[in-house]
């Protein structure tokens, strides 16, 4: 956990944080941002105490059930502390040791009363391989592994059908000792080979079934098996995961849970001097900085650029925040022959002599994302500390002194954990680059109206398409701002809405003269069970990339028109305030809905109505194209 900063006085701060006070949870969450060992993790977890029930402002609660075939109680502190690190209060329920099947299948089991959001299957490989003889042919071995996988799939299905829970399956630690040595890989029935095979089939099945993986097998390759498996603990108490690995285990799991809830980081903000290259461009000049092949240090910085470029290709937004003359800094991107990152790769480029916290605010504003979506990478410990102090919501990895280890540090921190990879992700970089052209156009436009008219926008719409399900679910999962209800729906949930009679689902793509913005909005409307001609807007999300383009008006025009044709009389919509969705607090009033229910004192929820017969379509500059 080297990317987290060490705490100077953990015990002292823990004592303070234990005392009852209104910001007790905030203090504990701040402590969780530090590098904690095995014992410190247990201490912090104990100070956190039970977390069931309503979650306080700024935190959300998660009910997690772990079904395990080994002892996993020692993993709970790491899981809860890693959740706290992401402002998730995780209520962990552990089924009785080894009884995971009964727990799932028996409707009377405590698991069923808990009704978990997430079911984690944490199983050892032993059961799956024990009955396979060493002499098994490849076909026999595959058949035996296939039976284990089929059983898992049955359990996954059961967990989903019963709880509508997200299922996370832990990959299998390959704890088998070599039997033949290197030749093991050529013997289908060799235990180590069986477990490798099991993991391979598991990944395929998970991909097909849309189950998420917790890849501790990969993590144990990273850290070494001894870091993850301690045979003494296994023999003593059937702990398959070594207690020393518990803090990391918890972080790996919390990443997946956070990613599924749209809480992964979105943007990587990079310093320049001694981060992207070695040297100071302002002092050393373009010939003086070291970058590229020929020297180890030059290659180290190039390796970081290569990794960052790959992150961009998978959808991470890139930004630059540097204390430099902007013209000098930009010239490196334009003219330096060894630069791998180009100026067009950077969605927000801020180089000046101002304070970095102010610049990070500017970047977040410019990209229209929250500060909590930023990761700030800087080699300078003083700048890092400055950001941690003034913007604690920004993730700041404790970059190692050796530039050779920058990539590893960034990769280990897992800021950009994902649960899906769509074509929209791979094109996000281009889309943000196109935004720069849009901004230039906006500046040259006389008025907002002229700008919008000149964009030549068109919307493509239709009900949810099967090929777009992953993107729709991602948009629903990740959108925090334009999201009046903040209801999260998994891919399976979304698929259910399509199949449900009389539900209206709509997806919108926005294209303009600068490019395709991709699938940027989705809407789910469901009929009221009591009054079928009344439809509720269960979910409506829109990417922050297209705010201010009148898409919400055109989307409502389209929804109203289609619903009217379906015989719907009125829409009902709730606005459920969160710390992040203030941007839509006036959405429904602006669209012509009438307030039916004033803000409730406890949660501030407002309810809105729209009689479709009264609806006058809003005029927009968006042309329509049907999908």
């Amino acid at each position, binding site marked *: *956990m*080297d990317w987290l900063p060490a705490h100077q006085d953990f015990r002292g701060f823990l004592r303070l944080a234990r005392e009852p006070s209104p910001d007790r949870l905030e203090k504990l969450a701040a402590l969780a941002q530090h590098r904690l*060992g095995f*014992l410190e993790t*247990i201490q912090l977890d104990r100070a956190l105490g039970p977390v069931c029930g309503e979650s306080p402002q700024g935190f959300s609660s998660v009910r997690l059930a772990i079904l395990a075939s080994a002892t996993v109680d020692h993993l709970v502190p790491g899981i809860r502390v890693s959740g706290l690190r992401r402002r998730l209060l995780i209520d962990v329920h552990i089924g009785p040791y080894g009884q995971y099947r009964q727990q799932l299948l028996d409707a009377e089991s405590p698991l069923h009363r808990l009704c978990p959001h997430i079911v984690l299957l944490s199983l050892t490989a032993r059961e799956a391989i024990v009955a396979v003889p060493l002499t098994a042919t490849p076909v026999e071995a595959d058949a035996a592994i296939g039976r284990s996988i089929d059983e898992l799939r049955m359990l996954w299905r059961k967990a989903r059908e019963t709880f509508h829970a997200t299922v996370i399956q832990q990959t299998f630690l390959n704890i088998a000792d070599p039997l033949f040595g290197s030749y093991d890989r050529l013997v289908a029935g060799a235990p180590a080979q069986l477990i490798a095979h099991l993991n391979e089939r598991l990944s395929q099945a998970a991909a097909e079934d849309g189950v998420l993986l917790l890849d501790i097998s990969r*993590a144990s390759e990273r850290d070494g098996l001894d870091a993850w498996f301690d045979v*003494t*603990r296994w023999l003593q108490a059937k702990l398959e995961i070594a207690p020393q690995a518990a*803090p*990391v285990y918890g972080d790996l799991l919390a990443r997946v849970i956070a990613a599924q809830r749209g809480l992964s980081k979105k943007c990587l903000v990079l310093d320049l001097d001694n981060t992207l290259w070695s040297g100071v461009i302002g002092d050393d000049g373009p010939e003086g900085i070291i970058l590229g092949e020929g020297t180890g240090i030059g290659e180290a910085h190039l390796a970081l650029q290569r990794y960052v470029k790959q992150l961009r290709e998978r959808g991470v937004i890139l930004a630059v925040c540097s204390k430099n003359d902007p013209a000098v800094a930009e010239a490196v991107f334009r003219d330096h022959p060894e630069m791998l990152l180009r100026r067009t790769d950077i969605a927000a480029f801020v180089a000046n002599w101002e304070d970095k916290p102010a610049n990070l605010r500017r970047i977040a504003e410019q990209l229209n994302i929250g500060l909590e979506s930023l990761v700030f990478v800087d080699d300078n410990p003083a700048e890092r500390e400055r950001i941690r102090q003034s913007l604690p919501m920004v993730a700041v990895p404790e970059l190692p002194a050796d530039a050779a280890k920058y990539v590893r540090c960034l990769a280990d921190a897992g800021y950009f954990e994902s649960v899906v990879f769509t074509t929209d992700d791979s094109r996000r970089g281009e889309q943000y680059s196109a935004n720069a052209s849009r901004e230039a156009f906006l500046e040259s436009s006389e008025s907002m109206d002229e700008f919008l008219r000149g964009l030549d926008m068109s919307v493509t719409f239709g009900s949810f398409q099967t090929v777009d399900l992953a993107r729709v679910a991602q948009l629903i999962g990740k959108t925090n701002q334009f999201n009046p209800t903040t209801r999260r729906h998994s891919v399976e949930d979304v698929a259910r809405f399509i199949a449900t009679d009389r539900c209206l689902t709509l997806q919108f793509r926005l294209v303009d003269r600068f490019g395709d913005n991709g699938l940027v909005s989705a809407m789910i409307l469901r009929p009221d069970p009591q009054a079928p001609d009344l439809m509720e807007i269960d979910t409506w999300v829109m990417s922050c990339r297209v705010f201010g383009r009148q898409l919400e008006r055109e989307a409502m025009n389209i929804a109203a028109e289609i619903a009217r044709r379906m015989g719907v009389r009125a829409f009902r919509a709730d606005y459920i305030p969160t710390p992040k969705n203030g941007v839509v607090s006036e959405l429904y009033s602006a669209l012509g809905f009438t307030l039916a229910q004033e803000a409730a004192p406890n949660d501030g929820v407002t309810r809105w109505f729209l009689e479709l017969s009264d609806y006058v379509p809003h005029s927009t500059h968006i042309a329509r194209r049907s999908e």
Partner: protein
Amino acid sequence: MCLTLPILLGDRSSMTDQDILNALTRILRDLLSDDSIVLTMETKRDDVPNWDSFAYISFIVAVESEFGVKFGVAEVESFQNVGAIVRRTSAILPTR
């Protein structure tokens, strides 16, 4: 994803049994969030409230991590009292 390594502060081979006992006391207090715990060489697990078998394993892990030592599977099960842990720790402390 590096696991936190034990922070070895200087040369531990000069530690006395009392030093080790003090360290074990601090570890157990941290582990059980109970600053009233006082360990002696004669203390047994049953003498300390909440020091159950689960907390015992956590304790052993924390001690191993603190001192950079590793107890054998038979040892962990045979420690009769805190003194036995202190003496064994002292015997296998890494020297520099």
